[in-house]
């Protein structure tokens, strides 16, 4: 049944992009320019309790080339992490995002760094799209000091406070109430910003999601719940886990939108729409129809519950990077060679970052005890034989 669903979606998106209009300037540099370009998304949006946004997305060559570069970087980074894991430099759990890059990249294009993003454990690419460096990623994965969490978090705990990326959470579904809390804080401080709380199709069955949705709708919080539906909750296909796999409709009274998550432009359009909606009307659910090529994590080959044909089928028909590549080529925004050069460049960047990360030292033993408590107010935790200390107040 999963196979037939995917065949259907493959045939749906096999009709490729039809550029409606293009106002192009002449032969461009590889960095592109800002002349507007309108592209149609692969499929129209399906909506629940709201008006779907239009299929035509405004973009420009520069943005498309940035999309290409960023997605190529993420893809390369995840493949490199795969090799590092097999070389036992990364241990524990490693959940890879390749195939789903369009969601991270498209979302980032629609929002600012003041908007908050919180996601689950498949967070490497979201971290990068929020401004994290490759060095921080690889160092954290290898447990080194240069990592974004000083090596103490690991693959599932990437955070970047200054660009409002709140992680990075291991327990399925627990990040959604946190995300609604972020939205609450945004409403409290009257920031006019929104929070994107991402979760998967497996987490969509968690009760705390509905609790948080209820509270968000009740209090009109600017929370956008994004279900990254890659159709498998670890080894369980969505039709075996959910009675109603129409996750965008699960909000009932909360509006929802179903988006082709392999089309970065569709994601961008949907996120822009969602942000406007959330600031005015409260929560909204976005369902991103996407796919992961790797298994659930590095311990899962990913082929015991789905066929290799399915995986390669999606890779041929719906790959996000290929889509952007075809778009760029068909609009003459760059040559094949230039795009290949970008990929080579990106590969080198990743290799350099890995080399640099390998040089970063392991954390000092004393780091075991730092950051358990925050030292605020001068109030100290007493050990067995400390000197008498007074409370010092601010």
């Amino acid at each position: 049944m999963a196979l037939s669903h995917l065949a259907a979606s493959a045939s749906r998106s096999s009709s490729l992009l039809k550029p409606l209009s293009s106002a192009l300037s002449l032969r461009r540099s590889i960095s592109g320019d800002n002349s507007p370009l309108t592209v149609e998304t692969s499929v129209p949006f399906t909506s629940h309790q709201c008006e779907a946004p239009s299929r035509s997305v405004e973009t420009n060559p520069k943005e498309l080339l940035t999309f290409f570069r960023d997605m190529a970087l993420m893809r390369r980074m995840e493949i490199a992490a795969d090799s590092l894991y097999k070389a036992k430099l990364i241990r524990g759990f490693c959940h890879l995002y390749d195939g789903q890059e369009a969601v991270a990249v498209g979302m980032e294009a629609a929002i600012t760094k003041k908007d908050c993003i919180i996601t689950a454990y498949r967070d490497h690419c979201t971290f990068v799209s929020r401004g994290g460096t490759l060095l921080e990623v690889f160092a954290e994965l290898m447990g080194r000091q240069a990592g974004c969490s000083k090596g103490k978090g690991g693959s599932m705990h990437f955070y970047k406070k200054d660009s409002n990326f709140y992680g990075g959470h291991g327990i399925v579904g627990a990040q959604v109430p946190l995300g609604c809390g972020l939205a609450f804080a945004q409403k409290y401080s009257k920031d006019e910003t929104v929070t994107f709380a991402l979760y998967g199709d497996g987490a969509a069955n968690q009760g705390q999601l509905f609790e948080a949705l209820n509270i968000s709708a009740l209090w009109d919080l600017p929370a956008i719940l994004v279900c990254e539906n890659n159709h498998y909750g670890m080894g369980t296909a969505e039709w075996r886990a959910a009675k109603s796999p129409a996750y965008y409709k699960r909000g009932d009274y909360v509006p929802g939108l179903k988006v082709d998550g392999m089309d970065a432009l569709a994601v961008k359009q949907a996120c822009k729409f969602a942000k406007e909606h959330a600031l005015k009307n409260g929560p909204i659910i976005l369902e991103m129809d996407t796919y992961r090529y790797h298994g659930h994590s590095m311990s899962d080959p990913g082929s015991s519950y789905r066929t290799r044909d399915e995986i390669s089928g999606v890779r041929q028909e719906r790959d996000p990077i290929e889509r952007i590549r075809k778009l760029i080529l068909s609009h003459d925004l760059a040559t094949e060679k230039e795009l290949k050069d970008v990929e080579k460049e990106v590969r080198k960047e990743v290799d350099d970052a890995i080399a640099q990360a390998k040089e970063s030292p392991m954390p000092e033993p004393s780091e075991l005890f730092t950051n358990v408590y925050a030292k605020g107010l001068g109030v100290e935790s007493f050990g067995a034989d400390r000197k008498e200390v007074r409370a010092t107040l601010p």
Partner: protein
Amino acid sequence: MAAIFQGVGAAAALSSLPSNSFDSKNILFSPRRSFSVRKAPSFVVVRSDGTMNLDLNPKGRRAQQFIANAVATKEDSSAASSSSKPGHELLLFEALREGLEEEMERDPRVCVMGEDVGHYGGSYKVTKGLATKFGDLRVLDTPIAENSFTGMGIGAAMTGLRPVVEGMNMGFLLLAFNQISNNCGMLHYTSGGQFTIPIVIRGPGGVGRQLGAEHSQRLESYFQSVPGIQMVACSTPYNAKGLMKAALRSENPVILFEHVLLYNLKERIPDEDYICNLEEAEMVRPGEHVTILTYSRMRYHVMQAAKTLVNKGYDPEVIDIRSLKPFDLYTIGNSVKKTHRVLIVEECMRTGGIGASLTAAITENFHDYLDAPIICLSSQDVPTPYAGRLEEWTVVQPAQIVTAVEQLCQ
């Protein structure tokens, strides 16, 4: 600056109870504690050195219906006999409310979320009047969804807000255990220090009056292992207000354990702004023969037993440990070094309770100073029964404390 709340209903109810309490002003100056006044605007840190003498209703079953007149005064005020006493009198839940209100006025980032805290005023009246004063965005009535609203509080705290999450009964917070353990306790560590979680989680717990097994839970024993959180238990109006304020000002997540039966304790507390140190234990009654460590409601059972013990010629030193995580091993250690005998009286169950951890901590650190094995009196390892007499037998009673001290001091 302190507003005096007239909890009308509560005061009326209390005044109708038999009041056979008396004031005994035994203020002892303990040399190792000095009084510190900071040159900071309008507050004072006071180490509480007042003793408390209670005259409890002798029938154990009605142990909670008493009026405590504890005088906790500053050390430099002329001691006992001021005719116009400083400070104002209030009940423990009013003290909590006062502390909360003062902090909400002081810091606009403080907000309260919980079930029925807003319009209803709180099921134990701790947040009464706050919603009218501060508005619905700062005092939020949540639906019955502990897991998610605790998670939301933690998420809001990650951005810098300082929420107070109230569990209507601490037992309900079991539903939020994942959020408290994984997110609240660990986020500061796993993010490498990027986020602090200045949240206060509070609520009443403990064995009440025939509330049944599920509403008589002692969650301090379940949470004590969670790294990254601090736990404190208040027992008097004075330390309730002080600990509430200190918890709200702390950058760490703090769980403040209140007790269902202690909400109507009355005490006179200072008018000035003060906070209590979160990691400090309170010396309730200095003594020489045995150290009795206790917290929350058991403090009153211990003090009742202490009266009997004094009559029998013993001199127990009673310490209210207050800080359940981390333990104030400094105060405790000094006491152990003095008396060489330790009795722990707690309301947790014997297995895996606070007393069990405290026994281990004292044995590890102060083994050489002990003349006798540590005795730990805890509640029985059973779900709390409904029947009144069975419930009495579940928790430690003053008579058992007296017996234990006699046994220790042989």
